């Protein structure tokens, strides 16, 4: 991952309770490696260091997960209020999904799970594709409820496994895609690349959501 910020890069937000936390090797670095191997530039910023210009310059944001014991993000939800007005694609993973839910009026709920679980995708989306069952790696003590203006893609409204905003390209998944589901990260990044080439992935998403 490069420390040089290039316009259009994918911004990986580290949600750990401390900067340079040991957990970044496990929960942030693999995401960056997968994206880079797929040819997409990205850089990492700790959420406490996020500046408005970082958001303006990036092509999209991935909010990364945290270690199982690390719930510091839930005590700093105001740090994610920018999500309400951010129009570029966002993917929240685990803790990242929870802060998206909270930013849009949903709740973070106790829902511990560790290991591989079946995920029934019930609604088609550009990111996850059509309805079918997949297997995802869970590592969380908390999950997120479905906020207003969001559509359930998998799981239950009280504890969603995947959701998306009905209009904006904002997604949340509770499972960790670096295990068995790297294609989700590649699909998210490919959408951003599509955007940069002129055709609007965001518009595509909006069109689909209004169908």
């Amino acid at each position, binding site marked *: 991952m490069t420390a040089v910020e290039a316009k259009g890069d994918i911004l990986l937000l580290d949600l750990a309770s401390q900067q340079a936390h*040991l957990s970044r*090797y496990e929960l942030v*670095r*693999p995401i960056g490696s997968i994206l880079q191997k797929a040819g997409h530039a990205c850089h990492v910023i700790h959420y406490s260091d996020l500046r408005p210009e970082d958001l303006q310059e990036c092509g999209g944001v991935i909010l990364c997960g945290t270690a*199982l014991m690390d719930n510091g993000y839930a005590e700093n939800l105001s740090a994610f209020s920018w999500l309400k007005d951010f129009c570029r694609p966002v993917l929240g993973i685990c803790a990242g999904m929870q802060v998206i839910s909270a930013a849009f009026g949903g709740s973070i709920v106790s829902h511990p799970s560790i*290991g591989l679980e079946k995920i029934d995708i019930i609604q088609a989306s550009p990111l996850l594709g059509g309805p079918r069952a997949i297997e995802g790696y869970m590592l969380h003590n908390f999950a997120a409820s479905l906020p207003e203006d969001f559509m359930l893609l998998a799981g239950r409204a009280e504890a969603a496994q995947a959701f998306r905003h009905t209009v904006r390209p904002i997604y949340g998944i509770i499972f960790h895609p*670096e295990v068995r589901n790297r294609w989700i990260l590649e699909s998210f990044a490919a959408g951003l690349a599509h955007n940069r080439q002129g055709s609007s992935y965001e518009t595509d998403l909006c069109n689909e959501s209004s169908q």
Partner: protein
Amino acid sequence: MRLGVLFSGGKDSVYACRLAMEANSVSCLITLISESPESYMFHTPNIRCTAMQARALGITRLAWPTRGVKEEELDDLQAAIAAARDQYAIQGIVSGAIESVYQAARVQRICRELHLWCFNPLWQADQLDHLRRLCREGYHTIISGVYAYPFDSSWLGAELSEEKIAALELLQKKYKINPSGEGGELETFVLDGPLFKKRIEVLRAEQRYANYSGQYIIREARLVEK
């Protein structure tokens, strides 16, 4: 944070320890000594030599016996981690898991049960990149066990050099073996590295090999000043 490292003496647990020490304190190494060669999680041919590695690293080792019976091992692991928490006041556990969901999920569950942090700093690392980084950083690692076709006896005791890594890369392409041994294809033992205050010199070792399965068993070794 005070951490305990699950330690087998192989390259992954040694390097996980190195990453943990960047900004944390490693208070102890935790080694499960399995009585069963069929152990799912803990058996390695030179597990008893971890005592010498711990001395070379200057970190206390907590050795915990296990009969090596499949699910019982997890109870033993939990007991070992609980003992490490109580004896060394550790706040978290570090493992060298790279891809094994079986291993990582079980350690995560134990840590949750014991209210400990759990870190897997090599998680999902590219296996060839990981091997090359070990070489580049000056870790001296030998192959201490092979358990898959087409490994022959020449691999046993060989140092994990750039040449050997290139050979592993070819085997990955041809036979889909995991070059880092994540699928149990091979095991390693670290003799020296930047973390080591002294290096280990093998004085006498024995090889056992048949049908693409073999071990390099260290019978006598000593610590040497660096």
